[in-house]
């Protein structure tokens, strides 16, 4: 086992699949000699050659179209969108084309494409770099949306995504890239897409989150423990489709739920989680399900991210409201 950061685990996953399957192609802006702006593709072009790992012209829609076309020729494209705030430039290729390929062609064509992209707040980027836009794509049928919260999951989920015969959006929270290391097996392994993980067991309240907010939730759980509150923390890991069974099982145990997301409140993943819980387990609830989210403004100017982004204190506060309902 090696100690790896999340970015190293991501590179390792791509290296593993580039080795395993000659149809895997990695491409995007600056991913070649430069190794990507975050170094996610560091060394891959040297190891696998320019035929397999290559730079594209600077045009996100073109990158999306390239992925569609290469998939039609039997390749397994792994394009990088340099920052997910640029997704608006490639929305048609993702939601209008890739996600519909199997459906539109009645199963004749498939799109085994994994789109990787950094996102997430707290690292003081310029505008349209940090937004949590997973909800946009989660609303599109035909594509899965995966968001790892740690190095181990990142490697296993990315390998699963690349092997998946349907399109997967793989979102990498920038703040988690190098924030900590953990043990990651050097050999190949997979983590199942669509499966949540209970990160911490508890009996009084369930915290459901994903991405960087998993860490805020774990921190909140530690604080709550000091007050004698036992919080269970669930990492969704995949936000489309959502692992309902793991959620409901926990709700039945704790009867109290707070859903946490970094994205703004309106219409997002957390709203969907709340809806599923009330449809399936309303009689197990002792209080309304509350949410911790960013406010419904446009994403924060970078100098004010600390006051705009949700944090563990917000979570503790909401848990207390739920428990005292």
């Amino acid at each position: 086992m090696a100690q790896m950061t999340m970015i190293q685990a991501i590179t390792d996953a791509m290296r593993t699949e580039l080795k395993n399957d000659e149809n895997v192609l990695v491409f995007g802006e600056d991913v070649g000699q430069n190794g990507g702006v975050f170094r996610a593709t560091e060394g891959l072009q040297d190891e696998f050659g320019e035929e397999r790992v290559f730079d594209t012209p600077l045009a996100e829609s073109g990158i999306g179209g390239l992925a569609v076309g290469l998939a039609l020729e039997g390749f397994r494209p792994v394009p990088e969108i340099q920052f997910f705030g640029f997704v608006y430039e490639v929305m048609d290729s993702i939601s209008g084309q890739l996600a519909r390929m199997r459906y539109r062609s009645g199963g004749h064509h498939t799109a085994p494409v994994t789109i990787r992209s950094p996102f997430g707040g707290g690292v003081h980027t310029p505008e349209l770099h940090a937004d949590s836009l997973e909800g946009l794509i989660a609303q599109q049928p035909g594509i899965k949306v995966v968001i790892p919260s740690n190095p181990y999951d990142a490697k296993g989920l990315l390998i699963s995504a690349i092997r998946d015969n349907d399109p997967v959006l793989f979102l990498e929270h920038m703040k988690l890239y190098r924030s900590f290391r953990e043990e990651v097996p050097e050999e190949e392994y997979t983590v199942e897409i669509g499966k949540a993980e209970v990160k911490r067991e508890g009996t009084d309240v369930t915290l459901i989150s994903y991405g960087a907010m998993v860490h805020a939730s774990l921190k909140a759980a530690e604080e709550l423990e000091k007050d004698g509150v036992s919080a269970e923390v669930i990492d969704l890991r995949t936000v489309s489709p959502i692992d309902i069974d793991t959620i409901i099982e926990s709700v039945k145990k704790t009867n109290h739920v707070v859903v946490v997301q970094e994205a703004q409140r309106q219409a997002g993943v957390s709203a969907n989680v709340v809806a599923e819980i009330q449809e399936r387990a309303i009689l197990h609830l002792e209080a309304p399900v509350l949410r911790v989210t960013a406010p419904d403004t446009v994403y924060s100017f970078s100098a004010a991210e600390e006051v705009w982004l949700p944090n563990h204190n917000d979570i503790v506060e909401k848990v207390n409201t739920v428990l005292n309902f």
Partner: protein
Amino acid sequence: MKHVLESVESQFEMFQILNEDGKIVNKDDMPDLSDEELKELMRRMVYTRILDQRSIALNRQGRLGFYAPTAGQEASQLGSQFALEKDDFILPGYRDVPQLIWQGLPLYQAFLFSRGHFHGNQMPEGVNALSPQIIIGAQYVQTAGVALGIKKRGRKAVAVTYTGDGGTSQGDFYEGINFAGAYKAPALFFVQNNYFAISVPVEKQTNAKTLAQKAVAAGIEGIQVDGMDVLAVYAVTKHSRDRAINGEGPTLIETLTYRYGPHTMAGDDPTRYRTEDLDNEWEKKDPLVRFRTFLEEKGIWSEEEENKVIEEAKNEIKQAIKKADEYPKQKVTDFIENMFEELPHNLQEQMEEYKEKESK
């Protein structure tokens, strides 16, 4: 300071082989086609004209759905397709159903596409094509991808795509030709310039004098061709295909053509934006008329022969409509089935729900 626009634009001249009177004006570039092949080209154009007439009639009777008329554009559509091989990959726009049909899509499936049935999009084995693209220009960026894939596989083939004059205003148009150029990928980008994007005339799309010259900015070959001259379109396609396969890169091909009918059968009224004079002017350039004159003067085509094709087309259309009528209706469970290789939790539940609904 040097100004180059005028000198660049003056380089783009319309390529023609057969003039409006059916006379060869460019003997040097006459393609090497046998009498049988020339007749086959005519047969396909006549057949496709009849298919268009019948499709419009069927649409008016409520027996077809979405339909974009093709009459006037036969030389552009069929002359280009005739130069392709089975291994080539077509990414059509929504008016480009005839190319799919002659590439091997059965007629009844073309009708099912029009009606909004997914079986119309299930290309038979051996037909390398996507179903018609609805988003204008999306097929251009995808074509760069298919062409790059073909190059990586070392296949001797090309990716071929079609859009209209309006499509050249889209960002995807530029991204597509630029990506293909950057990778020297074997792609043919057709712009069927029929002068109107629904109602907006091409002069309002761009200040460029030709659409072919847009190739220059991407560093690829561009050529403007008489899109009413099937021999010219064929010759240009063949030449550009050979270049692409030899590793000489993609070509942007602008065909000057005209659609006689409305944009689609969903309520467009061309009299709101085109004059009768303009319609008449273009009908004089009709691709079938001039090619018929040429073949008759060669002594290899006759009215009798043409009537035979018309009868054959009408018969086959009738059979195909019958087959389309008999094809099983779509169910929601079919749709669910075609979403993913393995159904996720939510769709498994919805599958059960709809199975029950459909069993009632």
